[in-house]
Structure formats: structure tokens, C-alpha cells
């Protein structure tokens, strides 16, 4: 399902970003003084709390909005978020775990072949863009999936999308396009 070939492509999710709300105001100073593994950033108005078990870093705002980053799967993100809410609850805040939403998923995938970026960009003119002087990868945006794929000449591909399913679909979609422009084959 990951690839249209016989060999399965390994899509490795490297980062899942999720947000949720505690539905109550949070006193950042209290969290910074009494919380464990916290970094207070008063100039930015937030507290970073790092969790060990699901390796997660959370940005906590006084409004009760929390952004959770560093998880490696959607479930892990949710578990980490709940642990985090539990930590805040223990600090004494009337926390309610609400509006949990995975906002962004970043995954990497490695093609078994190198890609000729110039040909790839030529074939997919409006959707793909490649500016070697700015960035070494060609960017391919899949609008209906709201996913962005960055293709490197080595065949490595990074995909960012709103959820894991979209990311997997994006890889499936782009595989045939990349296959056409393999380096050893369509080298012009």
C-alpha cells in the first residue's frame, strides 16, 4: 500500500504536531516554578515542558492552549498530550482535555533510486517547483491532500501533511511521477 511496486516503501514518521486546550487559564509562573522539566520563556510568554516517556516537547500558553511536538505517531501524540494535561492537573489547575487535533505530520521516505530533479520539475510544471540556488530539493504540493512533498536528488523524500493518512496517500501519488524521472533512466 505504501508503494505501487512489489517492494514496500518505508514511510518513517519523524514528527507529529498536535494542539489541544485546557479550557482554563494557566499561571505560567506557577508551572515554571513547580513543574518538572520545564523551561520558562517569559519573553515569548510560554513555558516549554518536555516529557521523557513519549519524547515530547509542549509549548504551554497562559490562555490554556498547548502545542505538542516531537511525537512519532498520532496515538503517541495523544498519549503525550494527555500525560501533559495530567501533569498540569497535578500542579493544581482545573484542566479539561479538549479540542485535541493533530495539526501536522512530517514523514520521510527513501526511494530505491535517485531522481533527476530537472526532468521531474519539467514534467510537472505548475505543481512542482525547483530553485536549486535557494533549496536543493524540488517542492511538489498536492493541493487536494494539503500535503507538501520535497524531493531530493538522492531519492529521499520528505512529506508534510495534516495527518498520517494524507501523508501515505501523497507518497503513493508521487511515487509513479518520481519513478518516471529516475536518474539512470531519463537522464537527458
Amino acid at each position, binding site marked *: 500500500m505504501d508503494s505501487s511496486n512489489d517492494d514496500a516503501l518505508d514511510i518513517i514518521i519523524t514528527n507529529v504536531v498536535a494542539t489541544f486546550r485546557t*479550557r482554563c*487559564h494557566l499561571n505560567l*509562573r506557577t508551572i515554571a516554578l513547580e513543574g518538572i522539566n520545564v523551561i520558562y520563556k517569559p519573553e515569548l510568554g510560554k513555558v516549554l515542558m518536555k516529557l521523557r*516517556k513519549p519524547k515530547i516537547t509542549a509549548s504551554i500558553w497562559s490562555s490554556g492552549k498547548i502545542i505538542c511536538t516531537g511525537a512519532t505517531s498520532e496515538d503517541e501524540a495523544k*498519549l503525550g498530550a494527555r*500525560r501533559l494535561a*495530567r501533569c498540569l492537573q*497535578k500542579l493544581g489547575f482545573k484542566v*479539561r*482535555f479538549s479540542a485535541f487535533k493533530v495539526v501536522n505530520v512530517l514523514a520521510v521516505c527513501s526511494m530505491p533510486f535517485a531522481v533527476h530533479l530537472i526532468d521531474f520539475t519539467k514534467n510537472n510544471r505548475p505543481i512542482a517547483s525547483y530553485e536549486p540556488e535557494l533549496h536543493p530539493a524540488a517542492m511538489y504540493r498536492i493541493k487536494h491532500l494539503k500535503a507538501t512533498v520535497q524531493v531530493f536528488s538522492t531519492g529521499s523524500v520528505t512529506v508534510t501533511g495534516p495527518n498520517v493518512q494524507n501523508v501515505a496517500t501523497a507518497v503513493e501519488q508521487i511515487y509513479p511521477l518520481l519513478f518516471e524521472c529516475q536518474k539512470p533512466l531519463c537522464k537527458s
Partner: protein
Amino acid sequence: MRELFLDEGLEDRVLDDLRHLWESKMMQSKAMEDFRKNNINSSNFVLQLPANYSQTDQEVTGQLYKVNVPVVVTQAAAGQQPVSQPTQKVPEWKETPAPQSVAVPQNTTHQQEVEPSPVSAASVTQPAHPKANLPPGQENNPPQKPHVPAVETSQLQGAHSPETEVALEENEPSPHPEPVNLSMTASASSQLLDFQICTEETFTQAAQLKTRDIDDILKEVIEEERVKAERARSLAPAKTDNQAEGVLGLDLDYNYSELSDIVQLDGPADNSDIEEEEGVPLEENDFLGIINAEAIKALQEGDESSNSISSSSDSEGVDELANVEEEDPLNSGDDVIEQDIPDLFDTDNVIVCQYDKIHRSKNRWKFHLKDGVMCYGGRDYVFSKAVGEAEW
């Protein structure tokens, strides 16, 4: 934080002055303890007191207002125009009891009053209806009028001001200006905030009104307000169109719950998430000193909007609540495991020092410390400079 402290400091000064005055006369009222909680908003209270009590103890009025403080804060941010309206009624009341003291403050308040007069006229119709329903229960003493309306208005800040005013009217049917005053107060539930403007002036006026035993008045007012609260509640769900009233009713519920442990049947306590929701507004009140008025308002608006939605249409409310419920149950530890590993780090090795620079990259930390003492391995050390690295 500093700004907040400064604000608190400024307010505290004013409050301290007022408190001294109150405490000297506090002997009668027992509500002092309850009011001390709302020290932050005492400035608002003080302002309101003079407006309401043209000739009463400032202390007494202050106490009454304290209860309403949380509500006052939020409303103040919302509307300032209506606030001016209640001031009108204050000067009018003052005229009857003590023209002397009133004259001075009235001049200042009149300026504010002029603007709201047209607005108040529009609201006259509303108070007219509730009038008939409101229970009389109170004497028609002229001194009571300003006292009672002041107390009631102060307490029922956001909640059905028209209803409260109506009650006031019933107490004093004879005076002509009363209905006008009531309408003004009704339209400006949030007007209580305006009282802040005339705080100093009103103080003198409040001192003048002291004809009654404050305890009796308080009791009467509380009883009336309870009745009104009930009516407000019944009216609030009925009037889906008028969300403002519903909101006011909800705010009124807040006040009442604080005043007299009345179980809220609607508003925040409308749905199954009762406990948590009720806890939220209380929590907000505790953080008043820290939270901005806008923040509180935002939170309350969020609660109010959810409440109004639930009251307006049960189906929609149920759906929203259902979603919230699905997300909510944190199950206090059942599903969420706490982190026991950090406990391993509670050793006796302690360093107390100042820092020059603390740097972190991912999970690698670098410390540049200075002027410190430390207890390491049971031995004490002192250093003027220390450099360290650690991995988290």
C-alpha cells in the same frame, strides 16, 4: 507580571484606604470575610458603593459589592456606556435623602448621566413588565430606596438589571424618578462599572446614607435578589433571542452561587459537565489578580456562548457537549500514567548559584555559573565560576 502587580498595588492603595473606613464600621456586617477574597476588585466595589449609597456607610456598601466583584470586572470591559446610566440614578436618589452631600457629587455624575438618559428611556418598557411580578417584600422608606437599589444593582451586575430595578421600584413606587432610574440601571447591567468613575465622589455620598441597619438591609436585598435570580433563570431560557439577558442571567447565577449556595440549574451547570464547568469560573475568580479583565471576559464569553447555545437549542448543546465529553475525561490517572522517573533525581546534591549563561541544544545543556555554593557527596564547596555540561 509587574504590570499586574502595579495594578494590584494601585488598587490596593485605594482599597486599603477604603478598608480602614470599612473595618471601623465592620462590626455589624459579617460579610467582611467573604469580601476580602475580592480585594483586587475592591476598587470597583468602592466605586460602586458611593454611587449606590449616597448616604450610607461606605464600608457596608463595599461589602455588598464585593460579592459582585467578579461579575463587575468582566462587564466593565464590555460596556462602559451603560455604566454611566446607573450613576444617574444614584444622583437622583441622593436628592431625596441628602441634598447637601448629594449636590457636590451630582454635579460630577450628571455629566455622565446626560448621555445615558436616552438609552434608559428605551429600557423602561422592560422593567415595567417585571415590576408586576417582583415581590414587594420591602419597606418603602426613602432611605431604603437608594440603599436597596444600590445593593441590588451592585450585586446583580450583569444579571437582569431590569428585574432588579423593578424590585427596587416596587419598594419605592411613589417617587417618580425611580422608574427612570430603574430603567437606566436595567439597561446598564454593566453600568456598575461606571461607578468606578465616580468612586471618590460617591464615597462622600455613601457616607451620608446611613439610616438603616445594614444587616437588615443586606438580608432583604439578598432575599430579593434570590427571587430575582430565580425569575432571571426562568426568563433566561425563555428568551433565547435576547442572549444578553441570558448571559446576564448566567452572570447572575454566578453571583448567587457565591452569595447563597444555590444550586445552579442552568447556565454553566446546565449539562453533565457541571462540576468541571463550575470549577472553571471559580478558578477564574481566583486568578483575577493575575488574569486581565479581557482574559476573564474572553473565558466567560466562551462559557456564556456555550451556555447560551445549550439553553437555546438542546440538540446543538448536546452535540457540542458530547464532543467535549468525549475529549474530556482525563480520568484522573486511570489512563494517563504519571512520570515516576524524575523522582530518581531527588538527591542531596544541591548547587545554589548565579548564572552567566545557560545554553541548550536539543537535549544537551551547557552551564556557565558563578558565585555559588554546593553540597556534593556530603561535602560543601564554594566557587566563583563553574562550567558544566549535561544531557537530559
